[in-house]
């Protein structure tokens, strides 16, 4: 049984940039290898207005989320404001690299709008904190190859929030169907200046 810890529980996530908006989405599966355990395991968290998707080893997903909840709360108390996406990205990077030789097995994605400039921001990381700044989309998880294929062909820049929702949803849905370890439901957040819309997608249950 030679296995990668980051594919033990399965799960995938994706983020995209639109016109003055961002979208971030994930599946809902939690498994143990090929056995499905839960269809209610959301992988997207938010700290103020910054959204974080965490794929990988589920135990680490929870630990890392709780750790960032603590760190962002402390940040909020020290700075008297919520953390911005750019700062949060650097916080994640240094927190992951701190454990360079005993890493968390997670694949994080950050998405959000900068409150000052209103600019959309997304980025992704490898499990030891190397940041991937992208202007278009970021993928993570066991269906990352499938998501790369979908996003690379479906994505176009400057989509309106409603169109961005369709594109990211179709990308996620088709990708997770070709991955045995992802699926079992999906969630999409579309983030704009004045509101956040959270939608649960209708998906296959196999």
């Amino acid at each position, binding site marked *: 049984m030679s296995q990668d810890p980051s594919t033990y529980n399965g799960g995938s996530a994706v983020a995209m940039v639109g016109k003055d908006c961002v979208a971030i989405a994930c599946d809902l599966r939690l498994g143990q290898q090929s056995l499905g355990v839960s269809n209610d395991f959301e992988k997207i968290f938010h700290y103020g207005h910054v959204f974080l998707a965490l794929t990988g080893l589920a135990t680490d997903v929870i630990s890392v989320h709780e750790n960032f909840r603590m760190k962002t709360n402390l940040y909020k108390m020290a700075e008297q404001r919520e953390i911005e996406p750019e700062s949060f990205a650097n916080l994640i990077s240094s927190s992951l690299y701190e454990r360079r030789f005993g890493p968390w097995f997670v694949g994080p994605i950050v998405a959000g709008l900068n409150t000052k400039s209103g600019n959309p921001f997304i980025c992704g990381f490898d499990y030891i904190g190397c940041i991937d700044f992208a202007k278009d989309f970021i993928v993570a998880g066991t269906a990352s190859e499938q998501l790369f*294929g979908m996003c*690379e062909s479906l994505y176009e820049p400057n989509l309106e929030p409603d169109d961005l929702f369709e594109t990211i949803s179709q990308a996620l*849905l088709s990708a997770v*169907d*070709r991955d045995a370890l992802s699926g079992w439901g999906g969630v999409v957040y579309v983030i704009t200046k004045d509101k956040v819309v959270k939608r649960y997608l209708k998906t296959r249950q196999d």
Partner: protein
Amino acid sequence: MCSTQKSLMATEYSTEVRMEPIEHRFNPYQDNGGTILGIAGEDFAVLAGDTRQTVGYSIDSRYEPKVHDVGDNLLLSANGFSADGVELVKVFESQLKWYHFDNNKKMLVHSAARLIQHMLYKKRMFPYYVSTILAGLDEEGKGAVYSFDPVGSYEREQCRAGGAAASLIMPFLDNQVNFKHQMDPESKGTKRRPLKYLSLDEVIELVRDAFSSATERHIEVGDGLQILIVTKDGVRKEYYPLKRD
């Protein structure tokens, strides 16, 4: 026991002697990268493949066509270990010749598929390291695509991607050819978007976009795109350049 000791082992730069004997073994297989893709239409079928051939991080050739017109309006490509792919196509062509001598008629696509299954399964214990796609027209003149695993398990499908970037292209095909997950916008998510056959022009556009996307994200895909189209009038070839980085 052994695996715990391994972490205590000195690195390759050290002069320390290894504690276990090194096992050398001949590996008869190689991965030559590349990707292929077959789509069946109403009265045509296409089989496409990139023309790059790789070993590791090197490009062996920027133009090594791997989709073959094997005669009898059949297209065949075996992607993976290219030596095995070439061998499989050669053996198939020779078998086809004997089929003509023995039966004095064209081989039908479903017969070709069954023949390929036997050719692959014959080597069950030392397989051809390839994913194979066969394209042609069936008895009714409808497009047919058959896909095979390395040991001969096969299925007729509407579309199939094989090779290095199959996992990138296949979900895209599900979405754009079979309209998976697409609902009729009027129905508020209750009715699926009705299926329809795509025209040849639409299919070629899809194939080109699938390959240019795969080229962007997979390092082993690129250089050139070869599309072979089979209709009742015969086989036609098209070539489009892809990015070379």
